[in-house]
């Protein structure tokens, strides 16, 4: 039976998404690990289906400044992939890559922005590549974009996209740890409802 809304998903379908998140996340962690030359792990993924306001609560203070790398998926799957890094996480990346300490989050130098963007790019592409080869779907990714702003404002992008057909969004989430240090970050895969059906069909679940 085709999935018409996020709420309709059954346990098996949710498990499959978790599996996809786990394989994608594992790959993303490996990519980040070789980039930062550190041991990077990713937490077990969660699949959450939340209303707009609940989704913001889930991510914490809506006014918190974060660095977000944003990629749009198109092709057989459509939706958004976001890597959200707190100031603490972004500092860690900039320190490991450039030896910088405590950069001004709102006035990043060009090189700092490029490093964050590239980190996001590599992590997101590894995630999607793993997902695509597991499920045998064709996914095209847009050029990544970086924004440093309030997390609530960042989330308005996926929400307004999904909000046209739904009062909820579905996020497949995961957090990174670097060298055993848990730093706040979120890897969010936000597929639209149609894409869920494509994934299930490809995996033979119907």
């Amino acid at each position, binding site marked *: 039976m085709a999935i018409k809304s996020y709420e309709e998903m059954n346990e098996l379908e949710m498990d499959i998404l978790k599996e996809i998140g786990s394989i994608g996340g594992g790959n993303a962690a490996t990519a980040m690990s070789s980039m930062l030359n550190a041991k990077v792990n990713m937490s077990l993924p969660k699949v959450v289906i939340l209303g707009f306001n609940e989704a913001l609560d889930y991510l914490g203070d809506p006014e918190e400044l974060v660095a977000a790398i944003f990629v749009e998926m198109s092709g057989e799957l459509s939706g958004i992939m976001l890597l959200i890094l707190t100031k603490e996480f972004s500092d860690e990346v900039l320190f490991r890559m450039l030896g910088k300490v405590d950069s001004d989050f709102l006035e990043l130098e060009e090189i700092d922005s490029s490093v964050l963007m590239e980190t996001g790019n590599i992590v997101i592409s590894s995630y999607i590549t793993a997902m695509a080869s597991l499920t045998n779907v064709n996914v095209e990714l847009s050029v990544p974009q970086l*924004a440093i702003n309030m997390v609530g404002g960042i989330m308005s992008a996926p929400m307004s996209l999904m909000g046209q057909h739904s009062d909820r969004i579905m996020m497949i989430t995961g957090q990174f740890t670097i060298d055993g240090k848990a730093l706040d970050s979120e890897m969010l895969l936000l597929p639209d409802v149609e894409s869920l059906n494509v994934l299930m069909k490809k995996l033979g679940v119907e």
Partner: protein
Amino acid sequence: MEKKISVGIADMKITRQEGILITYALGSCIGISFYDPMIKLGALLHIMLPEKGRGNDSNIYKFADSGIHETLRKLSAYGATKRRLVCKIAGGAKMFEMKGAGGLGNIGERNAQNVKRILMAEGLHVASEDTGANYARTMLLDVSTGKVSVRSAGRPERFL
């Protein structure tokens, strides 16, 4: 400490005499404040999309058209008079370039245009606005004075 009333996404709150209505981190969404100074009645609406369209979506405050109409209906029930209402808007930013936005293009800009068009059709004019650009805004309406302010990261607080 003044009482703060938080307005969520696709949400609207009304209060009178005192208190601060606040909506956090508007990105492409729009915050619309309505204030009747005579009776110190204020409303803050947070919409997400420009039009309700034909779908039977029950979340009226999600859309500019249905959200504004419902807010005006409630305000009038609370005793507001349209010609006294002062409206201000904030938000409508473009956080990212989006291609696949279902033909919506720049959602923030479309939201701002539609909000202004609908308010105008209702005979209301926008007294002041802070819209566009690429950053999020938190909007506050102080119901005891009617003052509206906007705060965003790395910029001084601005009164509308």
